[in-house]
């Protein structure tokens, strides 16, 4: 009996003591997940991008070097896609950081109706992207937009008005209004997530620091810029990184709203990659377009993480 107990104890102690093995075992599911759903598709995409694969024959038979990359970068859709992906990502990022900070400041305080505000602010995050896009399609419809109706009612739209003379703004039919609409939808759907992240950071700042600042006579903005934001910097970096990754790789909003038009002026790289590779049948060129995203995302993620670690350790 003693021998058995000793063996069990030995086995238990041995496993607990061998941190390397235990750690590897616990990490294994996550590593398997990353390998299957990230690494394999990624290397497959690299293989496809240097091949002549099509949707009808997706096997990688022939190596064609960088031909697909050379071909796609000469297309104006690619130029617009790259430009717009950058603009949409950065604009969304800046707006989200400002608004998430503002919202977290609001939610860090106690006020009547706070629960309701919390629910309302979180709602867009809970809504499926497709449903949200349909709502936005209607909201900014070329004929039946309630926003247009409100502007007309306020005599801001129509003949002889500030935004006139047309009775509609045709949001998705104009280049910069269309890009603005894509940015607005991105901000609307990602803001709750960013707010939650920033709020977690905001509530972890010790209250006595704010109390001390108040006693010292610091106003709202001085407190914000000298205490809150420096303390939030690591968490804001994480929020920025998540937002950038989600926006830069998203094609659904463009697909459901402007469809890349007018012309290619609101085209985004992920949507162009889909159109070219799947709808158009040129799978290898679609993969090449999609891979252009990778270096940008990789460099962005590395810089953001290094910055976050440095700020935190400082």
């Amino acid at each position, binding site marked *: 009996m003693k021998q058995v107990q000793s063996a069990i104890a030995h086995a238990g102690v041995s496993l607990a003591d061998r941190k390397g093995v235990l750690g590897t075992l616990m990490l294994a599911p996550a590593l398997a997940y990353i390998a299957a759903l990230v690494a394999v598709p990624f290397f497959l995409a690299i293989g496809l991008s240097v091949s002549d694969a099509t*949707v*009808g024959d997706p096997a990688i038979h022939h190596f064609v070097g960088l031909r697909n990359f050379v071909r796609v970068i000469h297309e104006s859709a690619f130029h617009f896609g790259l430009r717009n992906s950058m603009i949409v990502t950065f604009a969304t990022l800046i707006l989200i950081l400002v608004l998430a900070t503002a919202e977290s400041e609001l939610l860090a305080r106690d006020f009547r109706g706070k629960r309701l505000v919390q629910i309302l602010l979180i709602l867009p995050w809970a809504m499926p992207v497709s449903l949200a896009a349909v709502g936005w399609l209607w909201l900014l419809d070329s004929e039946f937009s309630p926003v247009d109706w409100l502007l007309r009612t306020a005599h801001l739209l129509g003949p002889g008005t500030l935004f006139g003379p047309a009775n509609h703004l045709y949001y998705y*039919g104009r280049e910069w209004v269309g890009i603005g609409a894509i940015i607005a939808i991105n901000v609307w759907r990602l803001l709750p997530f960013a707010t939650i992240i920033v709020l977690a950071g905001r509530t972890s700042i010790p209250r006595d620091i704010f109390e001390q600042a108040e006693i010292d006579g610091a106003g709202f903005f001085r407190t914000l810029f000298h205490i809150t934001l420096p303390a939030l910097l690591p968490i804001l970096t994480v929020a920025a990184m998540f937002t950038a990754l989600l926006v830069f790789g998203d094609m659904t909003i463009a697909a459901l709203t402007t469809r890349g038009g007018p012309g290619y002026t609101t085209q985004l790289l992920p949507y162009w990659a889909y159109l070219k590779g799947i709808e158009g049948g040129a799978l290898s060129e679609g993969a090449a377009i999609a891979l252009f995203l990778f270096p940008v995302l990789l460099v962005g993620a590395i810089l953001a993480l290094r910055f976050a670690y440095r700020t935190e350790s400082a």
Partner: protein
Amino acid sequence: MNRFLSQCIAGVFTLVLSVAAMAAGTTTGIQPAPLHFPSKFGSMKFPAKFPAGTTLTLTQWSHFVPRYDKWFDQYAQEWGKKNGVKVTVQHISLGDIVPTLAASIAAKRGPTMFETIATPAAFIEGLQNLADVNKAAQQVFGKQEEVCTSQSYLPITKTWYGYCDGWVPDPGDYRVSLWKAAGYPNGPVTYDGLYNGGVKIFQKTGLPVGVGMSPEIDSEFYARSLIWSYGGSLFDKCGNVALDSPQVVKAVEFQTKLYKSAETPEVFSWNPASNNQAFVSGQTSYIQNSISFYRTAQQFQPKNAEDTGFSPGLKGPTGDVHQTAHVWFIYVLPKYVTNPNEIMAAKKFLLDLTANYSWATYESELYNFPAFPKTAPQLWERGGWLDHDPWGSVPANKLEVLRNASKWTAWLGYPGDSSPAVSEVYNTHLLSTMMAEAARGDKTPAQAVKDTAAQIGAIVAKWRAKGYVGCPAK
């Protein structure tokens, strides 16, 4: 005994469908032919019953006319019972067909057949050659409409990569009262008429012309129709690029002029349903579209439906009329399907569907036109469905204009066939983008045409290198 039994089943099924159709509020009159399921089609013979365990899975788009899907599902089950095949039909949205087919080919598994709505030439390497079933169909049903053949056969490789059982005309659709008041009681007949009348209506009522320049199918069809009717073309008969021509530049100049005088920026961001929506809600004077929007209007906006007129494609300056077909019904059989019984069942299903196509035309409310005209004589005959619409048009012969639709209908790749290059050009929306770039003033019409021709040239060269573009060697 078997033959008697099959006739009984077919008779009962026909009766049930007829009663159902009448109960649904249709007019009485000429009915589709009784269902029949022969076991021999020309050179192809099929067993009376397939071996136990034979299955057939179809993935197809949710039809614009909902009645058709209800009928089709019922028909497929009845066909399955008759032939001893377990049939499953999945209806998915129009936009999901191509990605689902791509995913299935990549995974080497999926449904037995897909139904695509335009040429599936881009998938040619992953599709089985359906030469036998196409040959058998032509032996039994006669010559196939060229608008269909051109979307399912590639002469240079001698491959039938699909089987087209039907197509849909794309007439001009005009608001009768508006065009009558503008001096065009029968709607515009020429592109000049579209411009002159459209401008007059826009200035008087604020209602624009509704031809799109957005990355979507209707805008792509319109751009092609305009170019062809102006005597231009994207490709020649052998699939070489022919876009950069004075005729095409003239067509683009016309569209730029039309946009500036009679359209609004909304046409740059339309989706395939937008022009329907604008027309049904009375927000536009003219669109080019199939009749499905009209069937919707008959139910929900009957006054607008009555005020809708149909016209053939518009004449260009040289008198040419070419309108792109709106939809094709093309089944494809991917190479990953290897079970011989399943393959034979699929082919039998295609031929039986064609044999009974008068039902498809009828239950689609005359949306589906047969690839083989002989299979739905009720549509064409004097006093038939086009003269007396069984689905309640006022006047009853409102759709009569579609009788000669095949004469003014062209196809993607016209005047040649549809190669993978044609498919890629269509699916990446190069023409609607070209029109938009010129109309918005981003480029001159000549520059927009030149740039687009260069883009198409690169696509054609790529597919030519793979052996899919060119004329067959004589």
